[in-house]
């Protein structure tokens, strides 16, 4: 297995794990309040839609000439990865609230208990649509990463395997403990995925416009080290900034 394949599996596994943890919270809340039949049908319908997207888009992307594919996929992954990295840095530095799965679960349970009971096709419609939308929206980010990352490396199967492995792990743990997975270090995982997507997006995007990286594939390690260092420096600087702002605010109140 090459280092690129390892990175591909890791990126899709981690991204999928984070999104499936968030989806699990929604599914648990729906299942507990509205019934498991509707919840599981919603999950199954969403997963079928997501698999269909991968099956349709994956081979279609493989037909695009490699230079154009690298440029477009590289640019998209870079922009998307920077979005994840930016939010992870803001959370790590305290400027953005961390994802609280327990709080989200409590809010979702409250909303589900208050919603009207409507039955369509023999299913509690609220429970079905809540799970369908929740899993579909969380899963779209995974599909995006699987299809783009996988197509650029001509390994969509491996990318999908990474995502599927994470889905199974989250499912097994979720069923075992029957609670939201609030102890999963979500922001750390998003930080890592953001770094991987930014690194590979930079590498492929530049190759797509004709750049020959010094050292070839080894440049990936250099880029990863550079972006990791920069991100950690940003977190450190923003934590100091936040402390200074809080001190100034408290001083102003006094």
């Amino acid at each position, binding site marked *: 297995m090459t280092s690129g394949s390892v990175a591909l599996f890791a990126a899709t596994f981690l991204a999928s794990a984070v999104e499936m943890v968030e989806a699990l919270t929604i599914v648990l809340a729906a299942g507990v309040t509205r019934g498991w039949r509707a919840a599981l049908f919603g999950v199954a319908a969403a997963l079928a839609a997501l698999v269909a997207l991968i099956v349709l888009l994956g081979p279609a992307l493989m037909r695009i000439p490699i230079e154009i594919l690298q*440029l477009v996929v590289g*640019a*998209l992954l*870079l*922009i*998307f990865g*920077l*979005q994840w*990295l*930016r*939010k992870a*840095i*803001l959370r790590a*530095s305290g*400027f953005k609230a961390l994802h609280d799965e327990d709080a989200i679960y409590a809010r979702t349970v409250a909303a589900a208990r208050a919603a009207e009971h409507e039955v369509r096709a023999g299913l509690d419609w609220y429970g079905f649509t809540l799970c369908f939308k929740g899993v579909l929206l969380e899963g*779209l*980010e995974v599909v*995006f990463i699987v299809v783009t990352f996988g197509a650029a490396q001509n390994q969509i199967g491996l990318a999908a395997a990474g995502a599927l492995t994470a889905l199974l792990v989250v499912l097994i743990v979720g069923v075992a403990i029957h609670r939201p997975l609030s102890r999963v270090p979500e922001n750390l995982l998003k930080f890592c995925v953001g770094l991987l997507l*930014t690194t590979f997006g*930079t590498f492929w*995007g*530049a190759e*797509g*416009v*004709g*750049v*020959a*990286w*010094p050292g070839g594939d080894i*440049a990936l390690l250099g*880029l990863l080290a*550079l*972006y990791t260092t*920069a991100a950690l420096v*940003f977190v450190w600087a*923003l934590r100091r*900034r*936040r402390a200074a*702002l809080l001190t100034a605010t408290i001083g102003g109140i006094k």
Partner: protein
Amino acid sequence: MIYLRRFAHFWYDFVVGDDWTIAAAVVVALVMTGVLTRAQLAGWWLLPTVVITFLGISLFQATRT
């Protein structure tokens, strides 16, 4: 028409997110990197430099208060 607009907005929000300037900087940097490469000059350094610079600017602008 409303659905098309909502669809486009969803995908814009999905890929670009909160700060469009980062996406714009990436696109411009890729174009400039291509120009440098076509001129037989080393352009590999430009994109990482732009990425770190604009990420930093975006973070500091987002944390002004």
